[in-house]
């Protein structure tokens, strides 16, 4: 396996090849960027004069806005391009689009793309740093970083925690990034979903991964429960009868009794109430979903600052 990050312009392509020490530095720095309680964010100038292009080939609201706010809070200028209405829809290839953008000399490109490996492919052909904001079903590195920041806001460390990740693991870039990150810090990870969304090779993805088809078993003793959205748009066929999904893999209040008393419930969003988790869980005291959103900005500030200054 080639360590992609080291070979190319300093960007953030994935968690798998990111050193544990780099992750620690980003998470520490993100804490500095968290807003004080009942106060607004600090306004900084550390990226003054820098330009960040957000290039979103796939629809996204929260990640796109989160990156925009993060860049602006550091004093950078941002420009966001959605695939619809750009030259992409006129048949321009990905390489040409990126070359055109690179010729305008932005300092970094934040990119989301529906194809796994698209940022890795581009990073081999461009000198500009690329931040992966989600590539297909591969990785979503800043999501895993903000999830780790959120867990660490509620627990002293990641080591030894039991984290259950439940849902459409096969198509989840969030799951892959989280598995790599949590594994690097010695967490115990249980991946859970219906068999066709839970390839058995996932057990070899990183040390400390277990698989389960049974939700109660997966949640047993959990410190953290991460629910994933069922990615209908990435599936060719339904893994099980749609009416049955929530019954067997949807998180409801009664499940929480199997977890540790101080369990936290996470979700990368957008949530589908009544599909992968019940409204009662989403709105319960255990839910830290909005903390995740808040940490998204702080973590992305730390990432952009690291890459650009």
């Amino acid at each position, binding site marked *: *396996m080639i360590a992609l990050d080291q070979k190319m312009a300093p960007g953030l392509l994935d968690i798998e090849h990111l050193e544990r020490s780099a992750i620690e530095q980003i998470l520490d720095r993100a804490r500095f960027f968290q807003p004080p309680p009942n106060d607004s964010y600090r306004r900084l100038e550390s990226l003054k004069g820098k330009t960040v292009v957000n290039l979103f080939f796939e629809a996204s609201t929260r990640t796109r806005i989160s990156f925009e706010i993060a860049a602006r809070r550091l004093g950078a200028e941002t420009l966001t391009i959605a695939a619809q209405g750009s030259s992409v829809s006129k048949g321009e290839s990905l390489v040409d689009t990126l070359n055109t953008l690179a010729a305008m000399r932005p300092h970094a490109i934040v990119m989301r793309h529906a194809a796994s490996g698209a940022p890795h*492919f581009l990073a081999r052909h461009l000198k500009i740093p690329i931040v992966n904001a989600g590539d*297909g079903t591969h990785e979503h590195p800043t999501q895993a970083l903000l999830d780790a920041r959120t867990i660490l806001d509620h627990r002293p460390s990641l080591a030894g925690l039991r984290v259950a990740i439940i849902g459409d693991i096969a198509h989840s870039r969030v799951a892959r990034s989280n598995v790599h990150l949590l594994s690097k810090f010695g967490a115990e990870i249980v991946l859970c979903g219906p068999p066709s969304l839970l390839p058995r090779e996932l057990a070899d*993805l990183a040390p400390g991964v277990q698989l389960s088809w049974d939700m109660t078993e997966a949640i047993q003793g959990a410190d953290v429960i991460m629910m994933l959205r069922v990615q209908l748009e990435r599936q060719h066929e339904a893994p099980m009868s749609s009416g049955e999904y929530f019954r067997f893999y949807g998180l409801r209040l009664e499940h929480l009794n199997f977890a540790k008393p101080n369990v936290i419930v996470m979700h990368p969003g957008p949530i589908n109430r009544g599909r992968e988790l019940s409204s009662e869980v989403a709105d319960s005291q255990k839910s830290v979903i909005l903390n995740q959103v808040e940490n998204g900005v702080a973590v992305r500030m730390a990432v952009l600052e690291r890459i650009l200054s």
Partner: protein
Amino acid sequence: MKSLFIFGGRVVDPASGFDGRADVLIRNGIVEAIGSNLEAPGVPRFDATGTIVAPGFIDMHVHLREPGIEHAETIETGARAAAAGGFTTICCMPNTIPVNDNATVTSYIVQRARQVTKVNVLPIGAITKGSLGEELAAIGSMHEAGIVAISDDGRPVMNSRVMRRAMELALAFDIPVIDHCEDLNLSAGGDMHEGAQSVRLGLRGIPAASEDVMVARDLLLAELTGARFHVAHLSTQRSVAMVAFAKSKGLKVTCEVTPHHFAITDEELGTYDSNFRMKPPLRRDRDVEAMIEGIVSGVIDAIATDHAPHAGSEKMQEFERCPFGITGLETAIGLSLSELVHTGRIGVVRLVELFTTGPAGVLKLKQGTLKPGGQGDVTIFDLDHEWTYDAQQSCSKSKNSPFDGRRFLGGPVATIVAGETIWQRGS
């Protein structure tokens, strides 16, 4: 028709069992004699000292893209790449535009090849019209026009009844049915071999079972019909085992493997480089080992490249959008030497078989031997020349090779067709 006196080399001719220091005399395009102390006054001489002189190599599985896709390759450029790779005979698959499913297209290819190259170009016809898998193509008239086999390579016949009828008809013309074994429903949407690596990279999987299921079906149909059946580019441990079993039962079954399927695994895909994207996909270590064991044991009859040129613009895309296939003609001998011979798994004679009597036997070709009286097609190669493959310098119109920059020990030295040297290293 040229004459050539090739002297000083080690002559390896598996068809006649000859292996030793000897000279080869080709007169007016025909092999006249093999032996020592031959006299050939006035005949041009080729010093083959330190090299191996073998019958012209045959690649029974290439894509030449003409007619219809000439921006990626033509018969002329593909044949030039073949010569540079040490091949004197190539068999081209029918997935051109239009598909080679009738005698007019077959004749076009045969005539065009005569105009543009000395390399023997033998077309393979489609099994079904348009390779759509429904109605049988004009197999008899294509056979009259010069096809040596039928195949819907790349678009396998999913309907087992149609495949049965094709095998039955092929019996009448004594040609093999070649199948690219892939259950298209199982492989649909897949990007690479399904396993730990596809899960890691978030790429969609093509399970080994998609190949195995079709190999099993075809072997059963071959038993039912008694047809000559050939598995193209097999890539899985199970496929080799099933072919071995069928052979042990006396079925007229043969198979080929590509160099990339015995040289590299799906571990190579970590950089999402589309030059590692092909069908069947690169598999696991154990499959690579099964390919090599199949070569050693004799279950595998031939090495074939599946040379599949694609224009650069088609390969410079997101991995999942790129077409499948890689070029292979110029690296086949080098890879075979490095992975099979230099590793001690097979000797030089077996290597030569895989490129000569092997494919010639599958297709019942007259080529593949140096017996006096046959056409003077010769491949000269060596075992110790160090060289680096540079895809940008390829004779092919396309550069989509995963072996760009790879270092090799030994490779083709000269390619001779009917006594004429059509390619020579360094010239």
